[in-house]
């Protein structure tokens, strides 16, 4: 049963509906000074759908501003918020450069980093990517772009052998796998990398038709239902924090218990937010990715500063984002120190000859190839155990043994 009010004109209603799509918020670009030094423009998605990761990365910049001066690096941090939006990333990069940034660090997301890279190339300002995996970023022939992060292809290439190693620990191997991924630049790049490398990787499972979704999706119940219907035994995901939470939540609700959830290098499963939102259900998810070196001297300094700045938070859930961002800033500061100038040409030349052994992430000295790519990354198997990301493989760096297959959602092992 219904009744009707007098309806005003539809033209009035429809004409204005379209305008809502244009609604947006305006961010600010605050700065905090550390004296006359290298002006580092830190470009990150500090609001919007990637805000959790962007804010975690920015903690790396805040910590860098505290500890790098004591190591002989002078820097001033300028901050730009991309609002998780490619167009804003472009505009904010322009603004950071106009505000005096001599190098740009960022921008967590491949699409936004690509937009910033175009601006930096036009303006002749170096950009050191902290996190951005789409391979095409270093295939554009940019002279000002440097990436201290593996490409999607490298992430997947490193992940496949680690998956086999994980299965081998219990001898239980999934026969089928399905990929769930966001259909943004990073998600598509990861999917392409998996499809490209799978035939040569000799993996023990058959890959089923992948399922893509809008990265802004608020509900992934349909996606999970569709994936469950395939009967896949292994779930491979390319996520960020918000969608990772939704995926696992839906898997629990829909009582789908595959052998495991593995991410070949995407964020989400190890983020602090993931543990906060899912509690015991966050455990046993696996990510194969580069990780911070817990034994490095720099890591210890960072952890000490983190404890001072954020006493209520656990470092493990932030360590990856902080490590990548801090290392990228360190690369820029090191180049500035060696160049003795912030002039773009001098800074670019110094960046090309980078050979930085003392850094936070696992791996040998940071160097860049002719395309501006650091090719010296290796990955570890990081499994969520007892509410924290724990290195379980390779054995040489392992803090605990991997648990495979993952226990069911109501298994006593989850506490």
């Amino acid at each position, binding site marked *: 049963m219904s009744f009707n*009010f*007098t309806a005003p004109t539809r033209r009035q209603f429809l004409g204005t*509906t379209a305008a809502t799509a244009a609604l947006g918020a305006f961010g600010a670009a605050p700065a905090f000074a550390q004296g006359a030094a290298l002006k580092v423009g830190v470009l990150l998605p500090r609001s919007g759908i990637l805000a959790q990761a962007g804010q975690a990365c920015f903690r790396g910049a805040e910590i860098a501003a505290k500890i790098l001066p004591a190591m002989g690096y002078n820097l001033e941090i300028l901050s730009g918020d991309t609002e998780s939006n490619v167009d804003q990333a472009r505009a904010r990069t322009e603004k950071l450069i106009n505000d005096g940034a001599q190098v740009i660090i960022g921008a967590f997301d491949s699409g936004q980093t690509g937009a910033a890279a175009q601006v930096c190339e036009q303006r002749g300002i170096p950009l050191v990517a902290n996190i951005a995996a789409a391979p095409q970023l270093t295939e554009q022939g940019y002279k000002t772009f440097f990436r201290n992060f593996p490409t999607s292809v490298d992430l997947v290439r490193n992940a496949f052998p680690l998956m086999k190693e994980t299965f081998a620990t219990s001898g239980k191997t999934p026969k089928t796998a399905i990929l769930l991924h966001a259909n943004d630049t990073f998600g598509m790049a990861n999917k392409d990398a998996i499809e490209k490398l799978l035939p040569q990787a000799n993996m023990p499972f058959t890959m089923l038709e992948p399922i893509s979704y809008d990265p802004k999706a608020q509900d992934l119940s349909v996606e999970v239902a569709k994936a*469950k219907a395939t009967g896949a035994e292994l779930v491979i995901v390319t996520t960020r924090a918000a969608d990772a939470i939704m995926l696992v939540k839906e898997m629990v609700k829909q009582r789908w218990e595959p052998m495991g959830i593995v991410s070949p290098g995407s964020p989400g499963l190890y983020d602090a937010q993931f543990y906060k*939102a899912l509690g015991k259900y966050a455990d046993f998810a696996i990510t194969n990715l580069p990780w911070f070196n817990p034994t490095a001297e720099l890591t210890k300094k960072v952890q000490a500063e983190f404890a001072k700045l954020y006493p209520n938070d656990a470092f493990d859930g932030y360590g990856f984002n902080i490590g990548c961002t801090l290392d990228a800033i360190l690369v820029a500061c090191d180049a500035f120190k060696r160049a003795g100038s912030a002039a773009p040409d001098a800074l670019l030349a110094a960046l090309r000859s980078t050979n930085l052994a003392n850094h936070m992430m696992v791996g040998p000295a940071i160097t860049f190839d002719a395309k501006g790519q650091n090719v010296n990354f290796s990955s570890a198997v990081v499994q969520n155990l007892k509410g924290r990301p724990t290195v379980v493989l390779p054995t040489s760096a392992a803090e605990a043994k991997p648990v495979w297959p993952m226990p069911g959602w109501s298994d006593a092992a989850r506490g």
Partner: protein
Amino acid sequence: MPLDFYLNVIVSGILTGLIYGLAAMGLSVIFGVVRLVNFAHGEMMVLGMFGAVLLSQSFHLDPMLSAPLIALVLFVAGYGLQRGLLNRFIDRPDHQQFILLVGIAMMLVNGLLMGFGPDARAANVDYSFDSFAVGMLNLDKVRVYAAGTALLVAGLLFCFFRYSRIGTAIRACADNQLGAKVVGLDVPGLYAITFGLGAACVGVAGSLMSLVIDVRPQLAPEYTLLSFIIVIVGGLGSMGGALLGGVLIGVSEAVAGFVLLPSMKSMFSYGLLVLVLLLRPQGLLGKKG
């Protein structure tokens, strides 16, 4: 693919659609009576979500129990807004009304960003990971409770408009504003009550939705747009149409996502919108003229 997968997806779409419908009902009521396009509708919904999350985190209050409180707060806020500000714009040109409400929307969303930051927040309840197994159906407990509450609120609202004196007076205003003034009705006061009811309605929907999704201030424009689509599909000014529109959007997205590509599911909301506008421009339950 086995039938139970389809049934589960359809039922899930219906349950989510009922909450969408309740949110859209608030917009429909305000639009049908006051003739204002409430651009701050999604923002009000997000206010309701944050209210529920805040009460859940601070006092461990279940969002379904906090819904009446949130409804009351939003009713007072909506009443005050209409009485103190929006009534002065009733006879102004449309674009002035739009800009005013867009301004209010931006103030609300940026206020939430300043107050709560951009991080997603969740109202955690003990049953947030539970589901009911009914035959071949696996029903998400949260959605079942939220959809049931949405139906109850919609029923109460319907009864209010149909059987109460104030509800009848509001409908008289909607039918003929001049006539209502002539017979001595306090039209500005009734508009304020209507706006308050619409705000309360969307506040309850927000509170219920906080059980289903993680809450961020930036969600607001999406829910404004979604409510507009539902109201147009269901029929402008029709309360039943809003519920029907919500269910249709919920089910069409769910089925399209399941059968085709999940990343294409939003396309079907707009497809349905275009189809309705072509075949039945007044909406499924709307009246011509």
